[in-house]
């Protein structure tokens, strides 16, 4: 999580579905129709870094942009709206979360690159304590499984283990790798004689 963290940058370019609150001329290229205006309620997938800003900054009518920083209440008043609304993506849907709740080890996070980072960024915006609680619990369960599997190297490909390992998220794969290297180093050293 730093300025130079390439994973953080890549995570920032993952896309979130959003809807525009305004019709904006000339932005049609976001929607695959260059030249046309983007219409109100058009559904677009925007990278997180862009969606973040557009969802927070209130669109101002003819006012100076500097007024932005002054009052928070303005944001809630009806005549000031953010440019876009974020729509709940598939991987935060109730169904998906219920799946996580029922069995954190069976769910495959591989299709959702940078899932944990997206969760972090999402909860920055929505302060979704419940989501974070659930995801943290899932992470701990998965981490302890990762630790167990990274220790017993011959168990990795049997039964559900293989499926689990294939379904690891990017940071979880890293975790697995580092943990495995560490266990292996110690094991080799304990076994070796000099």
């Amino acid at each position: 999580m730093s300025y130079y963290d390439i994973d953080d940058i890549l995570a920032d370019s993952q896309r979130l579905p959003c809807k525009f609150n305004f019709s904006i001329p000339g932005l049609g290229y976001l929607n695959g129709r260059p030249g046309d205006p983007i219409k109100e309620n058009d559904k677009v997938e925007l990278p997180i870094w862009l969606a973040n800003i557009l969802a927070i900054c209130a669109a101002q009518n003819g006012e100076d942009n500097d007024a932005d920083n002054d009052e928070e209440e303005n944001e809630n008043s009806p005549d000031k709206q953010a440019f876009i609304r974020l729509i709940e993506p598939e991987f935060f849907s109730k169904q998906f979360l219920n799946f996580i709740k029922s069995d954190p080890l069976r769910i495959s996070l591989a299709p959702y690159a940078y899932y944990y980072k997206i969760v972090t960024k999402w909860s920055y915006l929505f302060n979704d304590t419940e989501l974070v609680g659930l995801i943290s619990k899932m992470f701990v369960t998965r981490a302890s499984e990762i630790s167990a599997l990274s220790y017993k190297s011959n168990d990795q490909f049997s039964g559900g283990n293989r499926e689990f390992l294939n379904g690891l998220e990017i940071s979880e794969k890293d975790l697995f790798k580092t943990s495995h290297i560490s266990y292996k180093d110690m094991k080799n050293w304990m076994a070796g004689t000099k």
Partner: protein
Amino acid sequence: MANAKSLYRFSSGEINFLAEQELVTILPRYTMNGATLIGARLPDLKALRREEVPLWLALILKKQDKCNIVIPEWLTVNFLKKKYEEEMNQPNKFSDLPWQWLPISKMVLDKSSDDFIDPPHEIRSILQDLREIRQLKARKGIKELNEVYLQLDGLSLVEINEIRPLIVESMNQLRILSQSVKADQLSGAGDSELAEKGGMVNESQATYEQDASTTRDSIKPKADSSLYDSSVGKISVKGNTTTSDDSNGEGDSDDSDVEYRK
């Protein structure tokens, strides 16, 4: 891959080196003059008078058949059996073993097995049992991870070291997750509460709602350093083995020396 992450732990070679600094008692076979060596002094040796020297020196002398190593009292079948029972009886606790019990026992068993009173193979097998049961406990403990605190009383350097990468990274991930919501709550809370949470006080928090991206960036590095340190400090309960600091290596072996003698 192995670059930044490998800083989370010692390599086996480094551990070996640290363990070799531990003092053991030897029984010289010949009388010889002492010598000043880098890092240690070989005292004047008199035949059959006990002397304390670093393990590495003892192993060299042993190799040249110039001494016998006096096996430490914790490396006996009796002692280890007692510890093993202790481990069995306390499923949630680790029994107290020397800080470097694994590398020392390995080296002494490998290179000086004729000095043992008990049969070495028996000691080997009990050591193996001990190691396995403790490892099992340590890995079971990972289920209890949280983002702020972890206590690993009684674990030795090797045992901490091998789970350290996983634990440090997991706790870091959990902290990032939990902070993503806390940062928001904090922006509403008073400064006093902020100070309690590990120095995350940040002037720009008031503007968080509007200026999420910049605030986020400025909160992060601060929180990173403060919380990261404290968590690492707690993981390595016995010595100050923060991996980032090379100079701690010395203090480390000193710490454990003290415990060893108790």
